[in-house]
């Protein structure tokens, strides 16, 4: 009887049914990526995908794979610096299940894949400079318990990251301005922070009739530099050097310098131990004796590779905009420039735009130039 059933079962199928079925189909492995088919890539759609995954299945099968896939997509969705997105991802992990209940589980890494996944998530946060908060600690405690390795990582992050967060003496705002003009202004301000009397001016090249490039110029010059420029030897030419780069976190601003003559460094060769001829002690200005304010021999602007007389960043970084800059400097407070020769050492015409990482900014800037 059994053999008869088997025979009919085998006969009822066409002989090459199984092979045919596989021949006709795609052979490549298809993985389903819930993030891929999202038309709008932003924070709300990212959180929506996470919510969809959470609601799909009560067991949340494949949540580790889902979190890894989601971590890779963060940059594309623009949420890599968003604490809320990371919290939503941690929330995918089930609460209570991964907490070890005895010392052996605690010691031998209970649920290693899941713990490693959470550590990798925290590491990505660290790399992107996102500092977690106490709510995240509570979530992790509910998932992994106090002995969990992700908790150790969390506590380390909470110890170290705030220590280094505001360490820079030239602190930048959390979000850099999208506008290139504002960014250039910040950069020039930062460079010129050596001299507290500096004035940052924003000029428009439209003021100069002969200019071809109609753009903006951020120019930094202090009163000291103005007087240094006025004292420049007429026979020595000024040199416009550049382009140089300055990094404002991940944005690059190109700047140019106007360099004057090299002034000799003041050398004090007096022997301070020599007591044979002691000067009168200096008086107090306005009260005792007649004293002048002590002369400053060298300002910060006088360096051994030249005296820096002005610094600028222009919208186009082109030769023409630099020419306009010199003319604008002459117009606003540096009349001596009309008698001085200026050499441009721009090796090749710089790219038509400021070099920026963000393409959106570039487009924005081009519109401005038009």
């Amino acid at each position: 009887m059994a053999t008869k059933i088997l025979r009919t079962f085998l006969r009822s199928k066409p002989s090459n049914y199984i092979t045919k079925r596989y021949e006709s189909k795609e052979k490549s492995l298809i993985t389903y990526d819930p993030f891929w088919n999202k038309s709008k890539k932003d924070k709300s759609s990212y959180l929506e995908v996470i919510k969809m995954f959470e609601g799909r299945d009560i067991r949340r099968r494949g949540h580790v794979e889902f979190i890894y896939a989601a971590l890779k997509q963060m940059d594309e969705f623009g949420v890599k610096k968003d604490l809320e997105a990371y919290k939503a991802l941690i929330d995918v992990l089930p609460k209570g299940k991964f907490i070890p209940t005895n010392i052996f589980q605690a010691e031998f890494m209970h649920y290693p894949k899941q713990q490693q996944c959470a550590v990798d998530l925290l590491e990505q946060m660290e790399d992107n400079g996102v500092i977690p908060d106490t709510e995240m600690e509570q979530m992790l405690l509910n998932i992994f318990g106090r002995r969990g390795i992700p908790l150790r990582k969390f506590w380390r992050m909470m110890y170290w990251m705030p220590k280094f967060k505001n360490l820079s003496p030239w602190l930048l705002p959390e979000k850099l301005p999208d506008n290139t003009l504002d960014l250039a202004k910040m950069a020039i301000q930062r460079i010129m922070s050596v001299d507290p009397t500096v004035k940052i001016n924003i000029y428009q090249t439209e003021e100069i009739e002969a200019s071809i490039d109609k753009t903006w110029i951020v120019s930094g010059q202090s009163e000291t530099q103005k007087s240094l420029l006025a004292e420049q030897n007429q026979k020595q030419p000024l040199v416009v050097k550049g382009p140089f780069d300055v990094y404002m976190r991940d944005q690059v601003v190109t700047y140019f310098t106007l360099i004057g003559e090299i002034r000799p460094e003041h050398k004090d060769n007096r022997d301070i131990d020599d007591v044979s001829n002691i000067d009168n002690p200096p008086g107090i200005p306005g009260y005792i004796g007649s004293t002048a304010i002590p002369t400053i021999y060298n300002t910060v602007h006088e360096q051994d590779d030249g005296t820096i007389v002005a610094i600028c960043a222009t919208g186009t970084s082109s030769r023409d905009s630099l020419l306009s800059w010199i003319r604008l400097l002459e117009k606003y407070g540096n009349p001596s420039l009309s008698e001085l020769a200026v050499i441009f050492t721009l090796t090749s015409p710089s790219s038509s735009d400021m070099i920026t990482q963000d393409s959106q900014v570039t487009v924005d800037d081009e519109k401005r130039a038009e």
Partner: protein
Amino acid sequence: MLRETDLLWCFNKQSVLDKFVTTSDSDHNEGFSTCNLEISKAGRGLFHGTLDTRVPKDGRIKKAGYCSMRSQRIRKSFKRDATYDWTLYNTMVLKVRGDGRSYLLNISCEGYHDITWNDIYHYVLFTRGGPYWQISKIPISKFVFGSKGRLQDKQTRMRLDKVTHFGIACGDKIPGKFNLEIEYIGLEFDPNHEEEFAYEMYKTEKYIVGV
């Protein structure tokens, strides 16, 4: 002397630059960054190159992008290993001209056991950017203890009499060119700085920290 900087290296000639070795991840087939240490136009040491954060597709490397310069091991006669003795000082002084990036200062100390060979003390060198020189004074007590680049839970003070190498690294995850012009690296004793170690060293709970 108090408040006087003693120079360790003054980068004004090629022979000083030769005391340093530059390394980048491309040297080990672990990335695509390149770097070089040369005499600049202003006659100083110029540590420059390109940082590239692309990861080679070998399935092994997860992250890439570092360039570093490190002093060669100091030696006694007959090529025996020696160490710097910096016990008289408490502040590190660097005169640099950077490009706005932040760099990492690394000091390695000699240890006896092989697990201590990767122990390095780190601190950040922020640069202003621009044509002006900056003098950065960094208290040595602020250097953070790390092993293979990972900051350690149990922090310890540096053995200042056992310093073997000093290095500067660039690896701030921002791809692009970098330029760091160095005039000198020196040490100073600042009598007003009384801190011995900047990080907490109190006892913590068992089995959570340092395991």
